[in-house]
């Protein structure tokens, strides 16, 4: 696994990736500093969270795409690197990115809060956990497909599935809003402790991520090159 880590590290020290990281940081900081107390706070937070959530998936995807494109993926199968180690390295790497972007998000949220509504530790942790959960969910769905079908087919399937999940969530929310029982459920969610809910969500997603990890190892072991 050390060799795969080293290879990915050397790739990330390439100016292209470093520039991309700087660009994301800049966008995040600009969004945080430009926030307007009256109008934009929730939208800005959501947008920043979404962007960082998306970025935490883009980087590992780019690495996998590159691995496949230049033949490193098939070469790594011939090296003394177990397939399970290759998968595990990518999951750890993804986790690293999620944490990195969570840190970035954290800085953004603090700046935004201090500038506008004032710092609220519970709200801050809720936002942070919610976006981290988003990143975990995306990659839990994405990685098994990439390992099973490769980046071309895998990414297309991921987009389809993600849109499906997003629309399902939207439809479920719409249904709950119109249904009497649903409305009382939503009210319960609104009045309950957001931080605890987010913590619960994160715990559930951590389990999903672990299951996804094990599934990817199984799928990658069956993959032919």
């Amino acid at each position: 696994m050390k060799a795969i880590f080293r290879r990915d590290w050397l790739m990330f020290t390439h100016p292209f990736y470093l520039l991309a990281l700087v660009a994301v940081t800049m966008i995040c900081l600009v969004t945080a500093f430009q926030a307007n107390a009256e109008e934009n706070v929730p939208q800005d937070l959501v947008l920043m969270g979404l962007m960082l959530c998306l970025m935490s998936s883009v980087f590992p995807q780019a690495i996998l795409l590159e691995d496949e494109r230049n033949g490193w993926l098939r070469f790594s199968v011939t090296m003394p690197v177990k397939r399970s180690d290759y998968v595990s390295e990518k999951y750890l790497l993804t986790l690293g990115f999620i944490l990195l972007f969570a840190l970035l998000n954290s800085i953004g949220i603090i700046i935004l809060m201090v500038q506008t509504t004032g710092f609220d530790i519970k709200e801050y942790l809720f936002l942070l956990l919610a976006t981290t959960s988003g990143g975990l969910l995306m990659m839990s769905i994405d990685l098994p497909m990439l390992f099973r079908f490769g980046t071309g087919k895998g990414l297309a399937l991921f987009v389809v599935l993600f849109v499906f999940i997003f629309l399902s969530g939207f439809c479920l929310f719409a249904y709950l809003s119109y249904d009497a029982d649903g409305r009382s459920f939503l009210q319960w969610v609104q009045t309950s402790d957001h931080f605890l809910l987010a913590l619960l969500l994160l715990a559930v997603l951590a389990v999903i991520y672990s299951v996804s990890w094990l599934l990817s190892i199984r799928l990658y072991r069956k993959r032919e090159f």
Partner: protein
Amino acid sequence: MNAIEIKGLNKHFKDFAIEDLNLTVPSGCVVGLVGENGAGKSTTIKLILHMLFQDSGTVTILGKDNVKELDDVKEDIGVVFDECCFPKELTADKVRKIMRAAYRQWDDALFEEYMKRFDLPLKKTIGKFSRGMKMKLSIAVALSHHAKLLILDEATSGLDPVVRDDIIDILMDFTKEEDHSILISSHIVSDLEKACDYIAFLHKGKLVLCEEKDRLYEQYRVIHCDEQTLSAIPKEAVIGRKIGSFGAEAIVRQDAVPEGVQGYPIDIEKLFIFMVKESG
């Protein structure tokens, strides 16, 4: 011990199959896998390396089963594909750092020696390398962890004759050690003719011939005669034939060369072409 032993290997795809393949790479030998494009050379190599999973049959590499124990022998195998598999953004020096982490027996000094011998720069990005330089780098990597078995899949295709000749020289140096073996696939038969001890012909997923190179030279002859003379030779002794307006050219077993007809030494390329054409 054989470096590679394939027994009854089968793999079926929608429109192609490797059927009942039996092949041995004896330790200390170079075996050339020859076949036209799509004959199954790369598929065979992928099956050996368990990159494709066999339907049936067994493959042992350096005495270990390729399904259950491949991880135990990967340290001793050097693999070179038809394309350089290293990220083009990296330099050879960075590739060395990766490989140092991958192989327990990685030898930095040996790698540097090969880089000097191949005249390859350590600090230039691989993206700026020519195809020949990339292939040489791949070979340098494959040789720098003291592998006992080299597996090369079309490693010389697309290279100019000078670079190809360099690579063949390197491979011949590698086999100076008694326990070093090579399985090399190519459709450039002349390359294999120089380096190989054994030649294996693959055609449409089947092994049509596997023989010691010198025995092929001894066993077969090229003859030029008329159609009538050719038809008198037993069919099983004729490997391949070409009939034109100026008579017939055929490759036949040495013992079947008709009296009064001059038999010329064969070259492997001609044997290969005749066999493929005869098989249809």
